[in-house]
């Protein structure tokens, strides 16, 4: 029969051991591999949040795919907002470095995306705070690639990397 004090101490030791394994592994997984997030706002309608404020989509964010900052035109990505570092925004990649893009509402009509940068836009033009407002963004702000919608269940789907044809770059730099 174990004395009560001994049992408490053994439980504590087991708990701490488990804690120091579970917390770093979980945190590392959520930072480096994948996590989920709820999308707010209407800037990506109709691809995300078509119901507006009634129901927010929950998406799967894949960090592992962007660990080398490799994105394709048409990907939906999350990034740190260049105007507010405490906030993450989710937009579609329209152009990569070297492309010349025709802007919608930017102060310059045509913009060449500098090296190490990308041009992002929300699907809902006019209701989106994106590169048309703040210009090309550095790839270093890239957070994750949104690959699937997980919730609500009737909207389970894989998010395709489609570039709207009317938003294709005017000139693509061949590597």
């Amino acid at each position, binding site marked *: 029969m174990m004395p009560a004090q001994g049992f408490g101490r053994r439980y504590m030791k087991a708990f701490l051991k488990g804690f120091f394994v579970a917390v770093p*592994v979980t945190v*590392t997984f959520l930072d480096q591999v994948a996590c989920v997030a709820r999308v707010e706002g209407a800037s990506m309608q109709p691809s995300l949040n078509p119901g507006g404020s009634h129901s927010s989509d929950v998406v799967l964010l894949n960090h592992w795919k962007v660990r080398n900052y490799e994105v394709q035109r048409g990907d939906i990505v999350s990034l740190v907002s260049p105007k507010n570092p405490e906030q993450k925004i989710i937009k579609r990649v329209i152009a990569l470095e070297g492309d010349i893009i025709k802007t919608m509402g930017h102060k310059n009509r045509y913009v060449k995306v500098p090296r190490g940068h990308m041009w992002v836009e929300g699907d809902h033009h006019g209701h989106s705070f994106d590169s048309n407002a703040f210009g090309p963004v550095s790839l270093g*702000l890239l957070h994750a690639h949104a690959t699937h919608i997980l919730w609500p269940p009737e909207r389970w789907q894989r998010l395709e990397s489609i570039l709207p044809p009317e938003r294709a770059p005017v000139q693509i730099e061949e590597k």
Partner: protein
Amino acid sequence: MLRSILGKTFRLLGYTLQYGCIAHCAFEYVGGVVMCSGPSMEPTIQSSDIVFAENLSRHFYAIQRGDIIIAKSPSDPKSNICKRVIGLEGDKVFTHSPSDYLKSHSYVPRGHVWLEGDNLQNSTDSRYYGPIPYGLIRGRICLKIWPLNDFGFLRDSPNGHRFSDE
């Protein structure tokens, strides 16, 4: 025989994963040791000096004017730059190079910082590529640990007149 080897391998992998995750959390959320290279921060930091960078200030948004920070390079996200914060959002900064005669200034946009190296003659910084978003900052250098004759906290900027608080 094979089972015990397999068991030992799995245990080794498990420990490696566990300590790797602890190391990642320490580097990401607390701080780490960094070796700097390049002449852009002389005389405060020489090339091949080893410094300690902490990441807590970045997470708590407590970076201040005069801090030396490590950030991802805006034109190459896989490499890091090490510069001093001259202006925070809203500050007025002078954008001309030391060789220019006409002094021009601009205001640092919201969510951005203006960086300059201490070695103004030999530094590619915000005077060249403009202000960088705060989100690119990785950590703040707080202590120099090598060479030992220069051990300790880092000096203030030798270019004090560059600061402008308006």
